[in-house]
């Protein structure tokens, strides 16, 4: 997978719910929220707690360690940014702090066989250009 793929869809703004998350990626920080009222972990980012409706939430920084919850290996994509990549892995990763993020699993030779549900992974940042956001991806721990 290329480090810089200009055609890869980028998050678009203004979009006030996830903008703080993406802004933090410029410092290679993986942010998630917790609810000040019910303590639930909130992800994807929102201005309210989807468990209790509280508008009081706090931002925290993840260590970036987790496990693959599940994955799929895409062999056919018609999107210009992905169609020539060869097989690439889409996954849900469960971070140790208790949130589940969609991402890619990278740095595996054979994604079908080298990835498994439950496999431990760690963060692998993919910069999207000078001063731009970075994409949090994961690789085998």
């Amino acid at each position, binding site marked *: 997978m290329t480090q810089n793929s200009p055609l890869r869809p980028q998050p678009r703004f203004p*979009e006030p719910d*996830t903008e703080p998350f993406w802004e933090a990626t410029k410092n290679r920080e993986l942010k998630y929220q917790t609810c000040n009222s019910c303590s639930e972990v909130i992800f994807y980012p929102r201005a309210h707690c989807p468990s209790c409706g509280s508008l009081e939430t706090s931002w925290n920084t993840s260590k970036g360690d987790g496990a693959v919850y599940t994955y799929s290996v895409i062999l056919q994509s018609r999107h210009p940014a992905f169609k020539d990549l060869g097989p690439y892995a889409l996954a*849900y990763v469960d971070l140790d702090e208790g949130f*589940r993020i969609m991402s890619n699993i990278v740095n595996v030779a054979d994604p079908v066989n080298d990835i498994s*549900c439950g496999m431990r992974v760690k963060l692998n940042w993919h910069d999207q250009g000078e001063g731009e956001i970075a994409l949090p991806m994961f690789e085998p721990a």
Partner: protein
Amino acid sequence: MSQRREAAIVGIHEYPLRVAPGVSSLQIKAASAAKALSDAGLNWQDVDAVYDTGTHQNIGGLGISEYLGLKPDLIDTTSVGGSSYEFQANHAATMIASGKANVALLTYGSTAHSDRRAIGTGGATGQGSPTPFNNMEDPWGMTLISNYGMVKARHMHQYGTTDEQFANISVATRYHAMRNPEAVKAMTDLEFVGVNEITTQDVMDSRLIAWPLHLLECCMVSDGGGAVVIASKEVAANCTKKPVWIIGGGEATKYRENGGDITVSAGAQSGPRAFADAGVTPDEIDILMAYDSFSITVMCMIEDLGFCSKGEGGDYVSSGILKFDQSGGPALNTDGGGLSSNHPGERGIFLLLESARQLRGESTAQVNDAKLAVAVGNGGQLGSRHSTSATILAAD
């Protein structure tokens, strides 16, 4: 408890073509509405309630009513993906039972094939206003098929379900499709390689689109549409065809959740609700019209509606009972399903149409003396935000 007899499907039409160049989705809706009303023995202006997602050609519930030339007392544009039509049928039955409407018209039309929409493999469009969903999903190159692939992968991991077991779903639907001339024409017009019955080996040998989903586990992208007329028992008494009663319904949604079990669909809520509402149990069901966007979707519907225990769907589908001429379980998708007959993007209406054909005795893979059917739609994307709605139907 005696079965409800308050609202019935009295008219149906499935647009016959799956490749329909030069025709608009609105025209498909209008043509299907006319034929469904004719099937019922009702007139255009008998319609007093319009059900349509309003999403095609972006004209909403007002626009579709104007286009059709109707002045309905009631409009419902519930739009939750492919299961919208089960949601709408349930709503229509409830409103008719409460006396708010007498004749409800449900319409659907799409030109997904002719528009060359790469629904399964296109990925993010980058169009429209930014949303949290898009911003947290688009950068990873997710395709719709890989979203379902993640569910299948987890099912295999969690329960030991095998590719071969999943393949039985595709085998059964193709078995039925080969008996349906419109499905055969669909597969021919869409240039399927091998318009014939298939084996589990054929499914496993077909190319991987998004591991672990193979080509023959993925629905077609067709043009098409249809219409359903639902009427009160008073109206139904004077209709041409025998009524197919809506006796229960259930609706639910589910989302990607921290720590959630992706193998359990919203059907685990809506299925039991529908059966309780209808006062029947899964083992009484003759016909299971389960939304087959992909093999995994059917697997989840079978388990979550309670046809077998969670995680045991692999053994269940492998016993051969899903074929219309086998006993021991419900016949699955007897029209050929989205896998082999019709999937223009939102298949939900066809689940109602084939259920009605079976309960009238008009199917091309007719189950003898079919009395009870469940149409269970799944909309959105199974691995993230989705809706599952079940409609339970009965013949007298």
